[in-house]
């Protein structure tokens, strides 16, 4: 069974345990926090730095953006966690970049300039969570109708009946 004590938490500890990891090396300056848990590397970056961080891991060989998604930790703050799952076809490794956002001002820069595939993923996060991506070429709803009120995957969205 899984033992929570096996996780390595904190930037210092992860960077000491995996000094040779390509993503760790690439984000030595930009990452603010790190976690190595269940054989998965998670690096936290500040929201101003997400485009720079995406470019840095791309140059380090992580060439494929698999997914952008969000988790709503309502009612705690910072409320939103945006997770970027990035894969390297050559290294056969993946790294997860995480940005934490406050509920009041849920906005960050789009990484469509680094990976065009972020277009649909970010539109999905915008549609279902209401997180705004600055610089996105076409930030419209993708699944819900244009005139839909609210963002269904938020935790405070009513599940049953009318509000």
């Amino acid at each position, binding site marked *: *069974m*899984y*033992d*929570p004590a096996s*996780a390595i938490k904190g930037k210092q500890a992860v960077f000491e345990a995996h000094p040779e990891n390509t993503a760790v090396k690439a984000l030595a300056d930009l990452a603010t926090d790190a976690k190595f*848990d*269940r054989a*998965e590397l*998670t690096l936290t970056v500040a929201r101003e730095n997400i485009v720079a961080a995406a470019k840095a891991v791309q140059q380090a060989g992580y*060439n*494929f*953006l*698999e*997914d952008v*998604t969000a*988790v*709503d930790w309502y009612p705690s703050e910072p409320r939103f966690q945006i*997770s970027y*799952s990035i894969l390297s*076809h050559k290294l*056969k490794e*993946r790294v*997860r970049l995480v940005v934490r956002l406050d509920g009041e001002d849920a906005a960050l820069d789009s990484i469509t300039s680094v*990976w*065009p*595939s972020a*277009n*649909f*993923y970010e539109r*999905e996060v915008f549609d*279902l969570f209401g997180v705004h991506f600055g610089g996105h070429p076409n930030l419209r*709803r*993708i*699944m*819900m*109708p244009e005139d839909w009120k609210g963002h*269904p*995957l938020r935790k405070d*969205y009513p*599940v049953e009946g009318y509000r």
Partner: protein
Amino acid sequence: MTPPVEELTGVAAIDPGIDDLIANSARNRQNPPSKDQTMIINMGPQHPSTHGVLRLVIEVDGETIVGLAPDIGYLHTGIEKTCEAKFYQQVVPMTDRIDYLCPMTNNLAYALAVEKLLGLEIPERAQYLRVLFNELTRIQSHLVWLGTHAMDIGALTVFLYCFREREDLLRIFEAVAGQRMMTSYVRVGGLSLEPPRDIYEKIRTFLKNFPAHVDEYEGLLQTNPIWMNRLKGVGYLSAEDAIALGVTGPPLRASGVDFDVRRDMPYSGYEKFQFNVPVSDVGDVWARYIVRMQEFRESVKICLQALDGLPEGHIVADAPKIILPNREQMKTQMESLIHHFKIVTEGFGVPAGEATSSVEAPHGMMNYYVVSDGTAKPYRVHMRNPGFATLQALETMCKGRLLADVVAVIGSIDIVLGEIDR
């Protein structure tokens, strides 16, 4: 554009002659068409070739495509939201509904993510059976792809043949899981049932006959000049574009990127199997067809290895607080009865954290991202389905081609709208 009435008098105006036609077409080629020369065509939301509810807004100049925008969002199953209200084990039947052509692959991807969160060790027999039925699911899904793709282009016979073979597979699934399409066979911690003893012989018979059927399809299609001309050189996608646009699976390998999750980041014991990963660097619809036809044969190889090497043992992990006890134990042992009651009424807690699983589904790479807050219900389940990303590449593949080519290209990326619109 309708010319003014007075211009229609005189032979030259009605029949402009071949020189004028050439001059006109040359002008159209050199200058990008302005808005008043193009027309918007709506394909779908219920077009038979879009394989579900998908609307494509296509801007055409004559018959040439100059712009294309997919408009998804008609199903509204709300599946990710629903998962948050279920116990971990109850999410498994939900994952069947994501992609109805490969339910077992979806079950497996979800189970792998939760098992990673739990740190569960799965017995080898369960892993071999998971691989076996996943590869049978791949054959089944590819059969539907080949049949409907051929039918879109106009070859109806192949469609009937493919569904004949698919029926054999669905009967096998029914005997194993009790259901033809929504199998829910893979569970967190193992499998739901031990397959009946006589099923292995039936699978062997199917695998023995199947390569001859693949030859039959190839004989029907690859000697057909219409099929060849509709596929070759159509829907080109370069390797750089494929990676930039998030394309995975057979379309990625047909563009020349040699990456397969089964081989490169093995899961569920795939590292024990010998198989080739078909790759083509041509990047058109024809290459995607060839890659999938070769995958048929590789899947047969993997299935035979799984049958030959199938070890004895349990099909569920040794974790009484997570796996339901069998009926006999439940009736004779008090402990088992308590576990059964607790699991059914309260579910099981999963240590807090997040995990991503990644499997190679028939349509491409499928990831499940499961976040746990330590309770018995998942805090968040996110599915990264291959069709959603591949759909972004449709415009790149279709631009500059004719309207009729859209049908061939959609068939070649093999989309299922259940996985695109959640």
